[in-house]
């Protein structure tokens, strides 16, 4: 919500305070303090315990004695490869779907509606179910085994709804004048799409991309039975590779004495995610503000 929009809300400016609001105010402030406290506690804890082990060699070195010693080099590489596969598979399909839903079909029509509904359901499917599905389809049925490819493709199914939603928003945010002018100039719809709409919708597409990466990076349950546990440096996409999130899980649950490296890995992962999600919300804010100003 833009600050400009909220300025008209008299209740946000300290007005409208009346008798009997004491309880509500106390409850609201208490709740906010609790939430801020929990967030601060978690972040502080991860930073305090994770900072000590963080160094360049931790990021580059191989995993030793199941993760108690050494670094997370191969795990970072596997994570990036899984992300790469995920994006390569999801972006073309996601972009095409977003274009179709936003530009070429009636959103509530006989084609748009079922596609949208099924994407909404897809967005709600629990990640462990994606894991089961990925294991059955990619690992076993398609014979890819526990591999970076299987993991990446499973994640691709998972990030599709997120990416499509944002990309579609990007297209819907392009003012209609652009389409009308293009039509008046006799552009074909393909030409309009590629030379006008696509460049104009780039911010939304990019935000979708960033949020998708964030979701994929945070995922664990869908990867355990698709990309597997192996902590060696992957040599090909058909090798099993352990993601950062699985490394944290394994260190904290299955490796006695792995806690300190689990903390450091968690710090690396949280740091990456905060950077990624921060970029996304900064971008979409900037983009919204620009839109407010040009209209």
């Amino acid at each position, binding site marked *: 919500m833009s600050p400009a929009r909220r300025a*008209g809300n008299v209740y946000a400016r300290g007005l409208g305070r009346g008798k009997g609001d004491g309880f509500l105010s106390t409850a609201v402030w208490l709740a906010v303090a609790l939430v801020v406290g929990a967030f601060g506690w978690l972040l502080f804890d991860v930073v305090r315990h994770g900072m000590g082990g963080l160094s360049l060699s931790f990021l580059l070195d191989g995993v030793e004695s199941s993760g108690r010693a050494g670094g997370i080099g191969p795990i970072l590489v596997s994570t990036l490869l899984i992300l790469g596969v995920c994006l390569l598979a999801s972006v073309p399909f996601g972009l095409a779907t977003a274009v179709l839903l936003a530009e070429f079909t009636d959103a509530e029509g006989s084609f748009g509606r079922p596609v949208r509904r099924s994407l909404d359901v897809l967005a709600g499917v629990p990640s462990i179910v994606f894991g089961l599905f990925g294991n059955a389809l990619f690992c076993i049925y398609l014979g890819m085994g526990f591999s970076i490819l299987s993991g990446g493709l499973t994640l691709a199914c998972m990030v599709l709804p997120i990416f499509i939603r944002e990309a579609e928003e990007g297209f819907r945010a392009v003012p209609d004048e652009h389409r009308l002018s293009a039509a008046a100039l006799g552009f074909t719809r393909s030409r309009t799409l590629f030379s006008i709409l696509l460049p104009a919708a780039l911010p939304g597409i990019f935000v979708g991309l960033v949020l998708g990466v964030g979701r994929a990076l945070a995922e664990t349950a869908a990867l355990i039975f698709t990309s597997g546990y192996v902590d060696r440096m992957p040599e090909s996409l058909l090798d099993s590779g352990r993601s950062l999130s699985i490394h*944290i899980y394994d260190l904290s649950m299955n490796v006695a004495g792995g806690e300190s490296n689990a903390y450091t890995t968690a710090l690396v992962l949280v740091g990456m995610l905060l950077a990624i999600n921060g970029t996304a919300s900064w971008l979409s804010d900037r983009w919204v503000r620009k839109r407010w100003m040009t209209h």
Partner: protein
Amino acid sequence: MSRWVGDRSLIACLRLAAATTGSVVLLIFVFLVFESWSALEALGLRFVTDSSWHPASDPSEGTFNLTPMLVGTLAATAGSMLLATPLALASAVFCNFYAAPRPAQLYRRMIELLAGIPSVVYGFWGLVVLVPLIRQIEPPGASLLAGILVLTIMILPTIALTADSAFGAVPESYLQASAALGLSRTTTLAAVVVPAARSGLFTGVMLGTGRALGETMAVLMVCGNVVQTPASLFDPIRTLTANIALEMAYALGDHRSALFVTGLALMCIVAALVLLTEAAAERWTVEGP
């Protein structure tokens, strides 16, 4: 005419791609049914009537009672919803009706970041911080309570962000009218804002429920994973999702198939929640606030 042929083929390609992405859900559903078929056929009602959960690949050798884990899942979900919903609503009220624009924006940004923290990190934090704390009150520490607390922090952002935008969408004129009538904040919220935003609030709560039901890693790490019907908040439990994650690695035959039955059940519940939410939202939009 030939220049329009490009358009036709472009739209055909887009339709094909969209049909593919749209059918991913169907594909998942088909695979789950396909993989769980043998257990459904062999076990049927035994998922609720068997004496315990001691699965084996041969159905005649094992017992397959899923009820304790279903109860565990429902208890953890219900508990976390009870805690997270008021906190999330208060957060959204804070952003829209208490804080000045700048602190509100800051708080909103914090909630967004909270939403982006991976579940495995929440689980890890719960394991090393919350579980030892709970152990001091009553051993063993890894318990339903730990699961509820971690889930609460995890689903709070989902509900809070949806509620925030629902409150933000309440027409300004409603608030001005309410202020002109001299209504207090409490009355305005209870009688004007919440009814006007009910569709968004309902969506938020449903999304949160879906997220809590389907969460795996965090509950797997803090709940203790003992298959039992919990008698108190301090009892360890195992949820349906954690069960899949724990046993999938070595499950064979009908045991593996039984895990897919669990997955299928979860998927059906979540799909029902999503479709119900959308139907409700649609009806409320048509009727108007």
